[in-house]
């Protein structure tokens, strides 16, 4: 029954189902680094998933649709930012508000356009192609896993790499991190706090847009109601695991992809109640988090002890 761990197809599915959460985790990471708690990632992804479908269906141009969805993602993030940062709303409440607007608004727009409350299959929307990488696809196991993924998966890796480079190697990134670390100190040093937070929000919006589009224009061929299904919230847990580091965040989102794929396989091969298995990713992530944080704590404690011992020796 456990043979599926060995098959390349399993790991290929892991990479595929990691993609949306990886993008959402990246969004959560950059939000944490800039000192914002953005619960609206879930809603932003949902809105962008629908926006991409509608825009590509009406323009019949994949890249134009993609661009409109990305702009939509930035716009939605800015609305959140306007209420949370400029109007000084509580960030939790603003995030919840955005998610309500997203879940209500997408259904409303969907019914207006297609007459269906469930999905957008009436619209002829476009999808991102599956890409084969020339050289890698010929390598036996690795080729099956890495090649033949959706285009958005490759885009997501590029986005993660670029964002990590931007955060740690450029002046803009350092400023963003300074703002997140201590806004008052950053302001005293002459950094425009609100501007840098909005730049971070824009990047968050782009990442959310691709995450949402992967769901409705890659993994599936149409938009279905509530299709983000908690991935945005999950990404905030991954973010706590990675403590805002995009590269670690990328790896920890693989954990979600892994548990999500296991869920599918378990539903096929085991006799446990289907609905109970669906709770597995959540529980798995929480257990892993508890373990990781306790290891972190013990490491910190040991470091402290060593430091005090060294001091005593001196």
């Amino acid at each position, binding site marked *: 029954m456990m043979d599926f761990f060995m098959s390349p197809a399993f790991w290929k599915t892991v990479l595929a189902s990691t993609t949306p959460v990886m993008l959402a985790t990246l969004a959560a990471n950059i939000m944490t680094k800039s000192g914002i*708690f953005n*619960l609206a990632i879930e809603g932003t992804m949902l809105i962008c998933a629908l926006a991409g479908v509608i825009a590509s269906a009406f323009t019949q141009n994949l890249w134009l649709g993609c661009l409109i969805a990305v702009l939509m993602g930035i716009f939605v993030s800015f609305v959140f930012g306007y*209420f949370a940062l*400029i*109007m*000084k*709303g*509580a960030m*939790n*409440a*603003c*995030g*919840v*508000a*955005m*998610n*309500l*607007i*997203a*879940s*209500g*608004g997408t*259904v*409303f727009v969907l*019914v*207006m356009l297609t007459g269906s*409350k469930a999905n957008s299959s009436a619209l002829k929307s476009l999808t991102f192609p599956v890409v084969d990488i020339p050289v890698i696809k010929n390598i036996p196991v690795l080729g099956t896993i890495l090649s033949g993924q959706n285009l958005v998966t490759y885009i997501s890796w590029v986005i993660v790499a670029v964002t990590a480079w931007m955060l740690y190697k450029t002046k803009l990134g350092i400023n963003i991190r300074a703002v997140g670390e201590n806004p008052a100190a950053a302001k005293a040093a002459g950094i425009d706090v609100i501007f840098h937070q909005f730049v971070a929000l824009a990047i968050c919006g782009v990442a959310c847009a691709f995450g949402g589009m992967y769901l409705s224009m890659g993994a599936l061929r149409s938009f279905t109601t509530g299709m983000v299904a*908690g991935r945005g*919230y*999950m990404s*905030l*847990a991954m973010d*706590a695991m990675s403590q805002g580091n995009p590269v670690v965040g990328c790896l920890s989102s693989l954990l979600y992809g892994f548990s999500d794929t296991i869920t599918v396989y378990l539903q096929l091969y085991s006799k446990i*109640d*289907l*609905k*109970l298995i*669906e*709770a597995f990713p*959540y*529980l798995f*992530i*929480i257990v892993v*988090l*508890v373990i990781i*944080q*306790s290891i972190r704590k013990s490491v910190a404690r040991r470091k402290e002890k060593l430091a005090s011992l060294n001091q005593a020796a001196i």
Partner: protein
Amino acid sequence: MEKKTKNTKKFDIMNYFNVIRIAAALLLSIILVFIIIFFVSDMPVVAIQKLMLGPLETKRSFFNVIVRGIPLVFTGLGLTLCLKSGIFNISSDASFYMGAVVSTAIAISIPLPNIVHQTVQILVAAVVGGLISMLPVIVNKYTKVNPVVLAIMANSIFYYFGLSIISTFFLEPSGSWGSYKFPDDARLGAMIKGTSLHYGFLIMIVTTIFVIFLMNKTSFGYKVRVTGSNTAFAKASGIKTGFVILLAQFIGGAIAGMGGAIEIVGVYKRFQWQAQTNYVWDGLLIYMLSNGNPTYIPLTAFFIAYLRVGAEIMSRSSDLDPEIVTFLQGIIIFLVASQRFLYFIKQRHDQKLSLEQAESEEGGATA
């Protein structure tokens, strides 16, 4: 001295600033929704009329509003306790759903006499709901994940958990998806004959009074409020903040769990909730509209229930979807949550006040 008495007598509109702010936010967002309706609907006037006045048209839909409001009052009261302690713990849905599941289990599997049966159901549901509500705070201590995220995850986990309990042990094999029927002595009867109003309404009133008393008249309520507004200060003044927070979560969750039990045995004949209940978002809006004061919770809860029923009536007689109310809720939360919404009024008033004060002080000095 004379001036002082004059000042206290003077009616100051700024005392009602919060009320004005919330009313303005409501009005603004409703107007926005009206504008949207005018743009997208073919029969905007009918739609708006049904949305706003629909629930008053028949006796049946009016009582529907009250029945729909009962679970919202429980969620709102539960959230008041959880949120007032300073933790944004929105796991009420988990407590609510599991409360209903536990109540179903007891109703079907344990035969007990009337009244005792319902009491046991509601009390056990309350304990289960309370324990669930404490989980996000406890897990937060070990994982450092924001309790909001943990609470939302708990809502999903316990939904799947409860659903699989029902479908493994209590599922009626034939017919549509649902548990076995509840026996008559496990249900809450109709309070007024010929309507859907059940005795849960009375329990709701008692619970509301209990929460108002607890929050405003007891030392525990005071401790919760101090902990919520300034944890460091509360700790420094000798309040055991951890204990206060956990107990507040327990009571809040217990109220939500009671709500679930009352809703399932009051309104339904058997357990049929296949989808996740989304009472917590309504509860959050209710909490924010009542400005965290439990006295106003029933009022705002019935307002939201009114909107919900109105939207359903609207969708039946026009081309609009009732989900527009969810959209409306989001906008209201945005506006009410923004501290700077209508802030200029308060600012101008404060400036005027301080100017007056400075002038009067100056006058006193020269005289």
